[in-house]
């Protein structure tokens, strides 16, 4: 018998028969992992298994490669501030959808897990949209395509960073990028904010992370962005207008 215990964030669940669910969770030490939850559709359990809920999981299987079963203990639920706000809820659904779509199964990403728990804690706060942009940047990094925005990829300067190279994901300063600016992405100001970020900066930041997520991850897997992400960007854009 193989068995472990871990903290998890529910990414999704599928009905299995009338009473059970197959739960997919992002766990701290075991990555994205699925398992059968007996009675997961019961009135008592299903509230704690909503996407974005935090759970304590015990996974058991006869062999490592089996689906196995989860025993779940509900932790922090999705806060009402998130449920009641369309933008925050879209950010939550997009987070779960992206993680479910791009993470390989059973590959540990403890840093990404910590980033996600941080995001869940920040979603009820005023700076939730910028926190979501940070999450997408962290996701890119976990996938091996991190943005290098600290200094210019061409000159090494930390001043006047205005662009991002669509090839390397590195920052480019105004002087080095001048001749190529129609081919470069605008520098995402949201990632060097010192105070509150306007929604316009968040949308611009998501355009950059979205470009790299699509190019390096989603297109390779043949998957689209979650619809919730599009709704989120549309909503942030509307606020800006």
């Amino acid at each position, binding site marked *: 018998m193989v068995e472990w215990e871990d903290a998890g964030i529910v990414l999704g669940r599928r009905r299995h028969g009338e009473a059970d669910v197959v739960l997919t969770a992002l766990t701290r030490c075991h990555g994205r992992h699925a398992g059968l939850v007996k009675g997961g559709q019961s009135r008592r359990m299903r*509230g704690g298994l*909503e996407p974005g809920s935090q759970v304590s999981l015990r996974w058991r299987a006869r062999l490592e490669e089996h689906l196995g079963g989860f025993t779940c203990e509900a932790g922090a639920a999705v*806060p009402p501030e998130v449920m009641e706000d369309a933008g925050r*809820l879209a950010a939550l*659904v997009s987070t779960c959808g992206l993680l479910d779509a791009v993470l390989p199964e059973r590959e540990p990403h403890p840093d990404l897990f910590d980033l996600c728990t941080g995001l869940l804690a920040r979603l009820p706060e005023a700076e939730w949209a910028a926190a979501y942009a940070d999450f997408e940047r962290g996701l890119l990094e976990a996938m091996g395509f991190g943005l290098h925005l600290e200094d210019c990829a061409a000159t090494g300067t930390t001043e006047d960073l205005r662009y991002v190279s669509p090839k390397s994901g590195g920052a480019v300063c105004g002087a080095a990028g001048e001749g190529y600016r129609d081919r470069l992405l605008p520098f995402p100001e949201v990632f060097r904010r010192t105070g509150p970020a306007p929604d316009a900066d968040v949308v611009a930041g998501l355009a950059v992370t979205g470009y790299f997520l699509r190019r390096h991850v989603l297109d390779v897997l043949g998957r689209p962005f979650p619809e*919730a992400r599009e709704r989120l960007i549309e909503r942030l854009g509307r606020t800006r207008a």
Partner: protein
Amino acid sequence: MSSLEIERLVALLAKLPGLGPRSARRAVLHILRKREVLGDPLLRSLDEVLTAVRPCSVCGNYDTSDPCEICADPRRDDAVLCVVPDVADIWALERTAAFRGRYHVLGGLLSPLDGIGPEELDFPRLAKRIRGGRVKEVILALPATVDGQTTAHYAADRLAGLGVRLTAPAHGLPVGGELEFLDDGTIAAALRARRSVE
């Protein structure tokens, strides 16, 4: 040894919610033993229901008449329209006898995981009903789940600008609920929606 016909009936009944192969077998045996009092009436009733019952072209409810009994009832309030995901929710609301307005069945909830997008839901007919001009309030009676609230926000966006008041049922303590046994989310929602008792 069961005949092929019995096996076929068992296999069909086993597909019903709440039944598995064993309980379906028991049900078939019961129907055969009570042929006159249960089997024949069940057959007739099933035939009648499948022949006569159709979805209402106005609200999506199931009924033998179109428009359904609820849509055709002149005593109901045309100004309040309750949007529900499924016909089962109409039945649940009707059991309470607490709502005397009209209904609209969306036909599900937005669910990225199950591949249900806005095109699969009956928003166009809902918007058309509201544009008809009699509706003053739309109650989005959708589940307090991530999918339910995502659908509610989407509906609110889509119906904004149609000149109706959009409301949703309160979330919080159920009647007979004790704090000790409630989940964190319900308690947090109930506290946020607290009301004055003075």
